[in-house]
């Protein structure tokens, strides 16, 4: 039985202008698989195609060519979308909603009934340490608090796949540590996580497997354990591997 949550084969994405003339080739035929239970790191320098890949996986962009399946379904299928949670690079919360309303809103959009949504919202706000501020408008929250609300919103429907785009971007060290611990605990509970980041130390800490993209192509990848085992400097193993792959 195929245990892959995400399967991408020969994925090509070319952005076109108004007259359909090719503007930029963001992805040039990438293949990758994310297995159930993986914490999968999608790494690469700016403009390498990470965000485009994620947007295609989320069904927000249509591929030019190639095949993408999410839980064996097309990414735009509602059944597939019902099983994923997404945390974007910035939290993008509605500033006029309170933390509780925000999480309930996304719970509702995910199809949770009112009672379950209330229970799950309270649980998550408690877990994120936001219970005391749950009735404050998120427009007045610090970046770290807003990130926690966004995390709660992404997790509210108990997704099987969590897609995290730069989850520690702009966070202070303590908040970064909290996020990493959260990812580890989610992985321990069996959740599959697809994560992109430029923070290679953090990625080495949380990921089980990585793929490195450069200029729209896969230029390296493997399990973090193997990469660390083969490295002369295990503390900087992923950083060295990344630099070697991208500059090759």
């Amino acid at each position: 039985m195929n245990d892959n949550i995400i399967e991408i084969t020969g994925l090509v994405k070319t952005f076109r202008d108004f007259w359909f003339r090719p503007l930029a080739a963001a992805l040039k035929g990438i293949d990758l698989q994310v297995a159930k239970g993986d914490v999968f790191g999608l790494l690469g320098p700016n403009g390498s195609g990470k965000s485009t890949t994620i947007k295609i996986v989320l069904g927000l962009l249509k591929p030019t060519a190639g095949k993408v399946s999410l839980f064996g379904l097309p990414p735009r299928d509602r059944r597939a979308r019902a099983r994923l949670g997404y945390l974007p690079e910035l939290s993008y919360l509605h500033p006029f909603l309170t933390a509780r309303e925000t999480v309930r809103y996304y719970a509702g959009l995910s199809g949770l009934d009112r009672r379950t949504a209330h229970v799950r919202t309270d649980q998550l706000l408690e877990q994120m340490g936001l219970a005391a501020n749950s009735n404050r408008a998120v427009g007045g929250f610090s970046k770290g608090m807003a990130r926690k609300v966004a995390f709660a919103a992404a997790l509210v429907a108990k997704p099987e796949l969590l897609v995290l785009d730069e989850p520690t971007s702009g966070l202070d060290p303590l908040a970064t540590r909290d996020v990493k611990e959260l990812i580890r605990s989610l992985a321990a509970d069996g959740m599959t996580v697809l994560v992109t980041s430029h923070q290679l130390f953090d990625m080495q800490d949380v990921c089980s497997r990585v793929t490195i993209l450069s200029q729209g192509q896969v230029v390296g990848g493997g399990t973090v354990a193997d990469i660390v085992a083969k490295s002369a400097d295990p503390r900087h193993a992923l950083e060295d591997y990344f630099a070697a792959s991208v500059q090759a």
Partner: protein
Amino acid sequence: MRHSFHLALCALVRGRVLALLLAAVALVHWLLPDFVRSDGTAAGALEMWVRAVPGVVDVIVLLVVLVVACGLFAREREEKRLALTLVRPAHALGVAYGKWLALIAVAAVVLLCSSALTLLFPPASAVSGLPPCRHHYEPKMPPAADVAGHLLESYLADPKTPEAVKKASRSAVLTLLTTKEIDRYDVVKPGATMMWPYGLEALQEKITAGEPLALGVRFSTQFEMRAPVAGKLRLGPYTAVVSNTTQSVLEIPLKKADAISPEKDSQLDLVFDNTGKTAVMVRPRRDLVVLARADSFAWNLLRAQLEVLALAALLSAYGLFLSASLSRPVAVFTALVTFLIVLMVPSVVAQFPDEFNAEFADRIGLALSRAVSTVTSSVSAPSPVADLATGKAIEWPELGRLLLGNVFVFPFVLLSLAAFVARRKALPDMD
């Protein structure tokens, strides 16, 4: 849909759109009556007050709803929140409907408040209360287009008809003949009698109950402005006398006659005997209307506000469609330009009915104006403020048709399109 509704409602309430609208309503009701000038009659004062106060509120509500709708999808997309919504397993159509319903709810609250203020603080001229509205019954004549069609057939069959007319575009000639038929004058010479068919089925109950009726009529005279008109009017069992009046627009009370022969009763025609010395001209399709008491001003106000709400529903659906397709400034600009075009096109069509003498470019313009006028008639045709101001009862069947189209059919189409586009344009253009 429920969650999207709640979100959009929170945005409108906490974003102070509702508060600003309510403040605008209060200001209009408080300040504008001082600036209203009328012809000095109670009816004229009420008409001007209705046009100036509830009328201005209605225009504000429609414009604000349109402009706000133009931002609902576009703003979410620009701030990258739309993508977060659309990665969830929610239907994009449900999301669009939620936003649309929130706009309707806000418009409904504002119109309700405006109505309450209208009834609580009526104009000073309405000392004896706001007058009841009246049904308007027009002569029962065959449709002008059918009459024009028959006329055209007879012209084409007539060997004396000039070749130029026979070779002209059939639709152009028909349009011209239809307009001529609508504006056709019947001339009643001194001592002559003219009859206009007036099916009174709709009025039968009122006739049986002996309710007072009136005839609204505009007399024109042939060679002299405001020559005195005199004559007798008969409408089924009702009669009235017109004695040497020089007024062109008249409202003539009709009295139930004691002795009317059954034959005359059954004719149900409006008959005018010209007993004066001047030939009288009447356009039967424009100048004659039987007025019968309907219900109170308050009920008519409710129906008028429902019409405005139906217009707001259609405009907000259109705004949401633009918002899903375009960036916010472009959507607002397009919406406002369209709104102006929709308001102006009917008068262009009415003022330039004859396309025979026009240049080619003018003919294209006329054809386009007619097409736009036809497509947008659900927005431009209803005139709730004018009806309320003149005391014309807004009829429930007419209102039902408007609600069906503007609240159910057209918004469904527009919101489906909006949902389709929103899903394909969930990300900003530069992303």
